[in-house]
């Protein structure tokens, strides 16, 4: 009996040794994969930074250098000393428009996604399909019509023309609806039994559970207003309302239409910094995710 036991123990030890070897190997594979992918994904970012540190004639070479031969911070100096750029105003406009449209967009998106995910009403599926369908037409065709609308309302060169028209995006309503669908329906029914109102339930249960996705949407929306270019240029290209991308695109272009890209890259790096810090801050919340809120139902 005891012999059998020790044999079994030995087998168990063997198996667990094998398992731990496998485990280490597995970890190595996972890390190798992640690191290789990380290098591939980060390469453009690296490129942006080294371009901003190159002198113009090094940058213009037809065979680009992987690392600047001369590290030149002049481009950054140029960004901060360029008086025509009105960096402060551009920054203020972009932050204002970004924050307001992201906040407004989030409220609308959360409410709509909740209605689509949890509430029952007539025509829900048809309406949802129609919303999806609007994503399928190339948006560039909308520009002229939308311009005519905002012109008619006298919205040209205002903040609202930058904030309101594209505040809501079907893309994100759809995304959040999908995420809400992941949350078990039993929670909702239980809350109903407890006499919890819809809004309270949304606020107390759904939003905390879907927080990682909501933060992802926040990031994407912020980035969207940071990068939006065509529409702002069309409707609000004046000193008081110009947004950052627009300002940067034109500021370093000479009469021949040749852009001083190293300086432009430096400018982009400068204005991206706050955004990057916001990301680092939000990332924490994405990763905390459910572990914090747990499952209370």
């Amino acid at each position, binding site marked *: 009996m005891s012999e059998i036991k020790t044999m079994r123990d030995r087998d168990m030890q063997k198996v667990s040794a094998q398992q731990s070897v496998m485990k280490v190997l597995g970890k190595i594979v996972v890390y190798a994969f992640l690191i290789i992918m990380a290098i591939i994904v980060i390469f453009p970012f690296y490129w942006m930074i080294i371009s901003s540190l190159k002198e113009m004639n090094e940058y*213009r070479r037809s065979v680009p250098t992987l690392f600047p031969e001369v590290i030149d911070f002049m481009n950054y100096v140029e960004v901060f000393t360029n008086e025509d750029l009105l960096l402060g105003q551009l920054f203020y406009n972009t932050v204002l428009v970004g924050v307001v449209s992201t906040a407004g967009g989030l409220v609308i998106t959360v409410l709509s996604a909740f209605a689509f995910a949890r509430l029952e009403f007539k*025509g829900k599926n*048809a309406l949802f399909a129609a919303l999806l369908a609007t994503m399928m037409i190339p948006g560039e065709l909308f520009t002229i019509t939308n311009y005519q609308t905002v012109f008619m309302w006298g919205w040209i060169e205002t903040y609202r023309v930058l904030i309101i028209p594209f505040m809501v995006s079907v893309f994100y309503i759809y995304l959040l609806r999908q995420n809400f669908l992941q949350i078990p329906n039993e929670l909702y029914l239980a809350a109903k039994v407890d006499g919890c109102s819809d809004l309270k339930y949304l606020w107390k249960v759904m939003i905390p559970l879907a927080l990682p996705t909501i933060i992802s949407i926040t990031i994407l929306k912020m980035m969207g207003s940071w990068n939006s270019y065509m529409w702002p240029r069309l409707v609000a290209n004046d000193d008081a309302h110009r947004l950052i991308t627009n300002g940067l695109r034109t500021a370093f272009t*000479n*009469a021949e239409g040749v852009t001083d890209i190293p300086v432009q890259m430096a400018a982009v790096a400068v204005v991206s910094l706050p955004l990057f810090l916001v990301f680092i801050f939000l990332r924490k919340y994405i990763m905390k995710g459910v572990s914090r809120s747990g499952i209370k139902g």
Partner: protein
Amino acid sequence: MKKIISSVLLVAMLLALCLGAMTGCTKPGSKAVEFEMPEGGFDTTKEVEITFYHSMGAALQEILNTAIADFNEIYPNIKITHKSYGDYDGVRDQIKTEITVGGQPNLAYCYPDHVALYNVAGAVQTLDVLIESEYGYTQEQIDDFIPAYYNEGKAFGDGKMYSLPIAKSTEVLYYNKTFFEKHGLTVPTTWDEMEETCRKIKELEPTCIPLGYDSEANWFITMCEQYGSDYTSASGENFLFDNETNHNFIKRFRTWYQNKWVTTEALSGGYTSALFTGESSGGDTVSTRCYMCIGSSGGATYQQPNQTNGVFEFEVGITSIPQIDVENPKVISQGPSICIFKNEDPQEVLATWLFAKFLTTDVVFQGSISMNNGYVPVIKSVEDNPVYAEFLQTASTANIQAYVVKVGLEQADAYYVSPAFNGSSVARDQVGLLVQKCLVIEGSDVDAAIKKAFKEAVEECKYQSGQ
């Protein structure tokens, strides 16, 4: 399923409503195309605000602001706001959209095909009445313009004036003077001489590509002009470039390309100035060089070689591009013009005209933008300005912008203008692609391949311009 059908029906109904509204309205039928001078002329007591769209970078905007201040000394009641839309296409797209609701500016940077597009909407003000009016140009001022620049505004097939030149550039031949002198080469003035020069340079240095030509489109259009063969026409059949002469010169240049005597921007993967200055391989040994380079006068600073301790690696020479007939030279003119948009208020149009006239005739403004960016001034009298004359004196490798402007001014009589119509930029794009396509043709039946490429290019032009 029912829901889908009913929503389709709903959309169809809405559509029908729209179409009904569309055909129901008629427009005021007046054909008020010419400007009508308001009674009492320009009102200097009333405030007028005008807007100007352009694609100027920061440095040029500063010069513009100075010019506006000077202009306001004369006309304090005209307030000018100006905005940059990044590049020429940016300005066009903006105005194209604004025109649909009548929100266009008073004045804008334009290329001829932009004017043609705005003209479809009937939005551009013809300038003939203004030019001849008491506020117009004097004969002396008209004669002061470089003729081809001035005539560009009339290239719309109806003889009327639609735009004014404001800042022009051209193409010139940059050559490595040090190399030419060392080997006793003469600078080519004709394409035959160019062929000879390329052969000699290739023998001297088999790994080099003697000539770089930046813009394929310019090459094609300029060759048409030099041969006197058809390219495009503003009236009747638009796209005429599929002809025997053009096939032949393309075939000739294809041989050059295959011999590795010439390359272009697209074919070498970058501006050929990089090959010319030898910066292509990280500064040390360069396996491929160009010793001649035909490029824009606006990019002169990029043709400047590296310097060590204040000494340039080689001296640059600049001259006019080679010709077919040296007695009758033709070189392209590029760069923006300005056009004035129609407006219900004749005072606004008049104020815009006065500003446009100021920009095109003010020696200080014309001289400043030329010195800043290597533009060729559109009026000859700029050369009489002492500051500017001094600038031209400094023409050398070190001050390459002055050098290139000097050459640009010397060839003032050689500039030509291509016809402008809605689709002329499509033709330009297509012939550029056509050159690329033909130069790289391989295989035995080159003639047939060239023929086919031309035919397809004309078809594409017709399709893209909506014919």
